[in-house]
Every structure is written in structure tokens, then in C-alpha cells.
């Protein structure tokens, strides 16, 4: 980078308030960030473009505008400022930062520097090939019962803490992805069972497996058995809830099956029930004794953390399901679904909308879907293909996604290197519409433009202010705008950074900026 020209500022403009000076150790060398420095940084990042092209002059019509899909209508044809960010993605450091923003929950300066040293390919290898590290057990998790319910706030804090410190951040990011895709909420699943906790462990264990194995675990997951009622479904009187969402939300999307398939699937999948833990058993026995009732004869402790199949509850006959008439079991149903052409593009589209861009081109989806199918739905293979695709580092992918609240908050905590923010994060989440284990609907979390309501934006900024305000000392600013925003910043962000030499204020500008809301 060429030597930046400094704009000298008047002493008055630079002066800290007396309160701040007293409480906060002054940085020994205050380096005013000049507009030119910012502009030059961006210019170089963009591959030698001149200062005047800071924001570039991309015609918005050339970009994939989001919102053509019914689930994110909030941005269709959005009027913009007419300028887009100049993508710095031809630069190795910017590629690394882009990868870390998408494939993990953000990074500290040290993590960023290590990855830059390793290079893009080695970083992809490290992220994708690492077996998911498991967090320490959640205290009391396995023993949850009516008398000792899970503390959901503590469980959320447990997960947020692990998102920050896991040595396998990509696996954790995928765990979070599956939590939104194969979703369940603690309200219906109930904290009086360990199920929602177990589901988190299972999704992590399966996060990088193949879709076939994962779908089986999802189907017989105790939390899922309760959330979508498959645990209640019997061959005699099937419950359609899981059968429908398995096809509509988990694998294919509407339009690829009929109502008859929903009904047939409900029969074919029936026969599962939720497992009973020792703690749940003890509780049931104690209650029965208290109330002077007999303990049900068939009540016993199941030594498994998955559904229990009872042939007597299942459907015995043949049904026509997705064009084949025969006698089915659960694995056969899932295999029949995986034979459908619609599955790979459905999953790939969802992945691309979360990791690359909101409206991926059909050819891109088709190409990755073909590879995904050929790999027998291997998730690791798919994700490697995503991160190494040319589209991933193409200009339309740059800042093309909005961080979900969890990503925003955890990446903030990582940037300021504060592992103690987990509770603040948990407390701030509901105001932004993303409470872990409590998705708004069976379709999981909203995405991208849907995170930009007035209430969301206010809550995001308030979190950032609160997070910084609780920290006695922030890390040195040292060009945080370069490390965390690729040096590609809008004129207002630059102007405000230039107006203060106070490190906390500068951190606030960077972390509250529109740039940092994007990934």
C-alpha cells in the first residue's frame, strides 16, 4: 500500500473529552485515519482503481438483485444509491476475510492473520476437513425432566460460548445452518426433556456428513419427533405434519409432490415414539405414586438418544409414495426422496443463499447440484465446491449477504476478543428476531433483506453499543477497518472515522457500520 497522505486536523477536533481521558489510558500514538488513507486502501484493494472509484460505478442491473424468491420479498427491485461496493476479492487477504465471514462466525485479528499466512486453499482445507469438535456437555442436559427442566437461557449461552471458542468454526457454522434448516423450537419440544439439547449435539455430529445419513438422524431425532409430531403418528391414524415438512421444507420444496404423497408418507413413516430417559422415568413414577396411580406397565427407560421404533404402531400395508407402490420403512422413504431430481437443487439453493449470494444463477445451482448428487449428497464435498467456486469470490458475491443476528453478534465478540459477551448476546437476540432454539416458524430463520426492519437495525446497533460499553478495555484499533471491513468503506463511515481519534468511538463506527452488518 502506498504511503498514506495524512490530513492534519485541528487540535480541537481531535480532543478527547475529559471523562474519557481520565478513565481510559490514552493510546500512545494516535494516528488519525485520513479519508485519503481509506480511499487509497480501497483503491488498491480493488486492483489499482483510482480514488474516485472507491464505491465503483457498477450498474445495479448487472447484479443479481435479491428478492425474486417469495421468501425474501423485502428487497425486490430495491432502489439503491446507484453505487455498489468495489469488490476487493482479487486480493488474497480480502478473499480470506470473505471466506472467514461466510464459513465461520467471524474472526479475531490473530485468526485473520494466521489464515492470511496459510493462504486461501489451506484455509479451506482446514475449515472443511476438520471433524466437528464437541463442546463440553451442558450441565444437567441429559437429566432434564419436569422437575429439573433445561435452563434455555443457559443452553443458549453455552452454544454462543462454543461458537466463539470452538477450534472447528466451520463445523459450528454448519451446525447453526442445520439448526435453521432442520429446525425445532424449545417451546413445543419442551425444556422438560433433554431433546432440544440432544438435537444440537446430533446436528453438530452430522454437520458435515452425507445428507442420507443426516436425514435419517433428523427423522428419528427425539426433538424432531415431538416438534413435527412424528412421535405421535401411528399407522392407524397417521399425523401428516412431518411427512409434509420433510418434503416441503427439508428436501424438495412445494410442487414436487402431491397431497396424496403427503398422506402416504405419513403412513409409511409412522411407528416411532420418543425415548424415555432415566430422569423422565423417575419423574413419571414419582408423579404416579404421588397421585396414587399405577405406573403404566409398558413404561421403561430407553437407553437411546433417538426415537424408538415400535412395529405395532407402524403401518403394515403398501402405499403409493412418489410413484412407487410397496411396503415402506423409514429408510426406504428417505431413499425414495433422495432419488428425486428436486432434492439437490433445493439444498444447493439454500446453501448458496446462506453462503454465497441471495439469487444464484440457475447454471450455478445446476452445476453444484450435479456434483452434490454425484458425491452421494456428501455435504463436505458440496461445501468445498461452494467455497472454491469462481462465483464465491466474484464481485456480485461481495457484501451480497446480510449477517444474521447471531453471526453479527458473535463476529463482534470475536473482533473485540471478548469471550465474556455470550450473555449479552443471548439477551440481545430476541430484539433482533433470532433466539436460538426458538425459530419464528417451522421454516427456520429469515435471511438477508428480512433482517433489515427498523426494529432489527435499532436492536443491532444497541447491541453493539452495549457490547462495547461493557468492556473495560478494547483491543488496539490498529486499522480495524482494514482487517474487518477490507478497507472498503463508504464515504460516511470514512468521514466519521476521521472525526474521532478515540479508539472506542472508532471501534463503534467500524462495528456498527452498514459494512459490518454484511458478509
Amino acid at each position: 500500500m502506498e504511503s498514506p497522505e495524512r490530513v492534519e486536523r485541528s487540535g480541537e477536533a481531535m480532543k478527547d473529552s475529559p471523562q474519557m481521558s481520565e478513565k481510559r489510558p490514552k493510546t500512545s500514538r494516535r494516528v488519525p485515519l485520513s479519508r485519503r488513507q481509506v480511499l487509497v486502501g480501497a483503491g488498491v484493494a480493488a486492483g489499482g482503481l483510482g480514488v474516485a472509484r472507491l464505491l465503483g460505478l457498477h450498474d445495479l442491473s448487472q447484479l443479481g438483485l435479491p428478492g425474486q424468491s417469495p421468501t425474501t420479498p423485502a428487497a425486490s427491485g430495491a432502489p439503491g444509491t446507484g453505487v455498489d461496493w468495489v469488490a476487493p476479492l482479487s486480493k488474497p487477504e480480502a478473499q480470506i476475510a470473505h471466506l472467514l465471514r461466510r464459513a465461520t462466525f467471524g474472526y479475531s485479528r490473530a485468526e485473520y492473520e494466521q489464515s492470511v499466512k496459510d493462504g486461501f486453499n489451506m484455509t479451506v482445507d482446514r475449515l472443511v476437513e476438520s471433524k466437528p469438535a464437541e463442546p463440553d456437555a451442558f450441565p444437567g442436559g441429559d437429566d432434564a425432566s419436569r422437575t429439573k427442566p433445561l435452563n434455555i437461557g443457559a443452553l443458549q449461552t453455552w452454544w454462543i460460548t462454543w461458537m466463539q471458542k470452538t477450534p472447528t468454526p466451520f463445523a459450528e457454522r454448519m451446525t447453526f445452518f442445520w439448526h435453521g434448516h432442520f429446525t425445532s423450537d424449545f417451546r413445543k419440544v419442551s425444556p422438560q426433556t433433554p431433546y432440544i439439547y440432544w438435537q444440537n449435539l446430533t446436528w453438530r455430529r452430522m454437520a458435515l456428513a452425507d445428507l442420507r445419513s443426516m436425514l435419517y438422524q433428523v427423522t428419528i431425532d427425539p426433538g424432531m419427533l415431538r416438534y413435527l409430531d412424528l412421535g405421535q403418528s401411528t399407522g392407524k391414524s397417521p399425523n401428516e405434519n412431518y411427512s409434509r415438512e420433510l418434503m416441503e421444507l427439508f428436501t424438495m420444496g412445494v410442487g414436487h409432490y402431491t397431497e396424496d404423497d403427503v398422506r402416504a408418507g405419513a403412513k409409511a413413516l409412522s411407528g416411532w415414539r420418543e425415548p424415555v430417559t432415566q430422569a423422565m422415568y423417575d419423574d413419571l413414577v414419582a408423579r404416579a405414586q404421588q397421585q396414587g396411580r399405577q405406573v403404566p406397565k409398558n413404561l421403561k427407560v430407553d437407553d437411546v438418544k433417538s426415537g424408538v421404533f415400535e412395529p405395532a404402531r407402524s403401518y403394515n400395508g403398501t402405499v403409493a409414495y412418489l410413484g412407487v407402490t410397496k411396503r415402506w420403512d423409514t429408510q426406504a422413504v428417505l431413499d425414495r426422496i433422495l432419488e428425486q431430481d428436486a432434492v439437490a437443487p433445493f439444498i444447493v439453493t439454500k446453501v448458496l443463499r446462506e453462503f454465497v449470494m441471495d439469487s444464484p444463477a440457475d447454471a450455478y445451482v445446476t452445476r453444484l447440484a450435479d456434483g452434490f448428487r454425484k458425491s452421494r449428497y456428501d455435504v463436505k464435498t458440496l461445501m468445498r465446491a461452494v467455497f472454491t467456486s469462481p462465483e464465491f469470490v466474484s464481485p456480485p458475491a461481495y457484501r451480497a449477504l446480510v449477517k444474521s443476528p447471531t453471526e453479527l453478534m458473535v463476529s463482534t465478540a470475536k473482533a473485540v476478543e471478548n469471550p465474556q459477551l455470550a450473555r449479552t448476546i443471548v439477551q440481545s437476540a430476541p430484539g433482533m428476531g433470532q433466539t436460538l432454539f426458538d425459530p419464528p416458524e417451522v421454516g427456520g430463520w429469515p435471511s438477508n433483506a428480512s433482517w433489515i426492519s427498523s426494529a432489527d437495525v435499532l436492536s443491532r446497533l444497541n447491541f453493539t453499543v452495549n457490547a462495547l460499553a461493557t468492556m473495560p478495555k478494547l483491543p488496539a484499533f490498529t486499522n480495524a477497518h482494514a482487517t474487518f471491513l477490507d478497507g472498503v468503506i463508504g464515504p460516511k463511515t470514512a468521514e466519521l472515522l476521521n472525526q474521532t481519534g478515540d479508539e472506542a468511538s472508532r471501534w463503534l463506527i467500524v462495528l456498527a457500520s452498514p459494512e459490518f452488518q454484511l458478509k
Partner: protein
Amino acid sequence: MDEKGIARYTRRDFMKAGFVFGVGAPALAAGYAAVPDVFARAVFDAKQAGVVNDRVLVMIQLGGGNDGLQTVIPLSNTRFRDLRPTLGAVADKALPITSDLGLNANLAGIKKLYDAGKVAIVQGVGYPQPSFSHFDSIRVWETADPTRRQQDGWLGKTIATNYDSAGHPLVGCACGTTSVPGALHDLQATLTVIQDQTTFKFQGGDNVEQVMGALYTGTPGIYGALFDTAMTTVRDTVAQLRTSAAQYTPKAAYSDKQQLVYSSKNQLAAALSLAAELIVTGSGVKILHVTLGGFDTHYTELNRHDDLMAYLDSAVSAFYADLAAYGMSDRVLVATWSEFGRRPNENASAGTDHGTAAPVFLIGDPVKGGLYGQAPDVNKLDTLGNLGYAVDFRAVYQEILGSHLGVSGRDILGQTFDRIPFVRDPAKSASTNGALVNAAGAPLPGRNSA
């Protein structure tokens, strides 16, 4: 915050000190100072004069698919009891409104309003070739388009077509949520979302607010305009709430303490209390949207649905009483909607699966109470075992738009339907009822004149 080791520099100190900006900051932010409320209202009134009446619409979404047959119940139909061996017990306690129909026993407050002629129930509301997918059917209702081609919500489109929301973000507002409901979505309309009025302000005070306002100005990129608009909306709304909070105290008991089989994530009573505040303080609200979730009752529905009915009843009753005490109930129409009803035949889990037609409730002084549409016939189910529909849901929208809000239903719906006359005194068309708005909410000559 009680993290260890944070003693030296407290949050309060930090807040007191504020973030430190140079002399440029105030000047830079000056252009974004909140518009004074009185001024905003004057501008708003001027814009509205001659365009609209003073009526307000509150839509309550019953998320998950409300079971119509457990809400408006056939009292003496043996087929109903056959189809619902467990759930049919709801008929035993129902509150009769005709010899053959009763309201869920937990709708006592709404029943009282019904007896007073303030509740219209449109029965058998649905649409052709119904979808059984939550998302698909929600989208149909939100966009008022069974062909699934429209992107914009019918309420958003109503705002964009009829009201100048740019200077006044509270014209359309979703209360008690954090995201814009699809029904309100329209890129040409400014919309506010308020989850909780007590926390709808900037941490760190005016200094931070001004800096944030400046930071979200002229933002580049495909999301830039959305971010900037959200910020402007936040600041206008903060200014509005600052003035209105002082003027409003609820005059009815709103309670979210209602015991539910499992807790609802929507605080309906709090959301309606906020709606009442926005209405009685003359904030310029026109269209409000609130949601009560939990209606996807696939199992053990009886208690679960009864609880939801009680919760709905208590929140709506308090809302009506509050508005009435403020003398504002004559201009507010409450309407319920849900993506579908449920299958008449109960399943093995003593619940019901996704179905079709269901009743819509219209509540308030503007309503001409009674039964409309046609009760669905449980003796005549279609091949999937579902009820037929008698009234297209867009006919209900049309009456709300044309007769209550006084705007063109055809502009929004693209076609016309047979009128379902549940609005007592239809508003005159927009072009003729001019200059009825008064920001103070005083009754004006000509209001509600037929």
C-alpha cells in the same frame, strides 16, 4: 452485566462520557435531526387532507392455521361429533349465537361484543385450489393472490397506493415483532416495526443516535437503501414514541399472563396495547398488524386451542375497552386472518392436520354485527376430506378496503367481488370524502356518514 473484572470502568461512565466525536459531528448530523412531532403531524395532515378518512385497521394474524370448527362450533351436528371424538367436546361448553352455532367457550368477551352487534363473523372463507403449505398459503393471504404471482403484501400495497408514508413511518406498523410481515411489505411504502415501545430507543443517547443517523446515510450496495430507510424510520419513530408515551396510559387491563399449554412467542396483549397507544396518541397510524402464533395444532388440540382462544379473547377485549374509554373505538376495525382452517377429521394425536376454509372475525364499532357467508358443511367434504369454501377471502379484503378505509379495493385486488356488507357505514369513496383527518382525533363533520 456482571462479568467479572469490569469494575474499573462502568457502563454508566461509558454512557455518560458518550462516544467522542470532533466538532464536525453535530454539524454533520444536523440534517438528520428528528422532525418535531407537531411539525410532522402538520405536514402529514396536509398531505392527507382530501385523500383519506380517519379510520384505522388492525389485522390480527392467527399463525399456524386456526381451526375454524373449534372456534365457531356446530352445536348439534352428529357428523361433527363423529369426525371429532375428542375435540368435539368443545361443543358442550360453547356459547350459542344461533340455535345451531356457538362460539368457543373461551371467547366470552368477543361473545359479549357479538351480542352488542359489534362482531361480524364471515363463515367459510377460503380460496380456490387451496394450498396446505403454511408458507404458500400465508403468501396467498398476504399478497391477496391465489395465483402466487404478486410479491407485495395487500396492506403494503394499500399504503403505497393511497397514503404518503414517506414522511410518516407509522402509517403502517407491525407491533410486537421484529420483522415486516409479508402483508405489509411493499417497497414503495415506509413501514415501522416495533417489538416493544419501552426499548425502542438508542442506547447511548442523542450523541449515538446522531452518529448512527449519519453512518446510515447514502449507504452503497444492494441493501443500502433498505438500511438507510430503516434508520430514518427508526429515528422518526423514536421521536414519535417519545411524545406519545407521555400521553397514553392504558385504560383497560392488558395481560400476557394467560396460561398456555406451551408458551406463545407472541405477546398479543402487549402488541395490542402498543397499537392502542399509537392510535389514541394521533400518531397517524392507519394500518396495524399483530400476530398470535401457536395455531398449528397437530396434537392434543383441545386444551391448546381453548387456551389460544382465551388469550385472543382477553387481548381483543382489553383493546376494545381501551379504545372505547378513549373514545376512539368508532374508527377502529379489527380483523382476524389465518392461512387455513384445519381438517374436520381429527387425527390419532387428538389434533388436526392442515385444512381449508375457516371463519374470519371483524370486530369493532364500525362493524355491522352478525353472520355472513355460509357455515361449512361437515357432511360434504371434498375428496381430501376438507371443507368447501363459500367466500373468497379477497371479498373480505374488498369490504375492509372499500367500505372501511374508503380506498379502491379494485386497485389492490385487481378485480371485484360480491360485497359482504359487514361495515355499518361504508366510507364514501376517496375522491369525495375529503378533509376528514384531524390529527387530534376530534370528530369531524361527515365522518362515518353514509
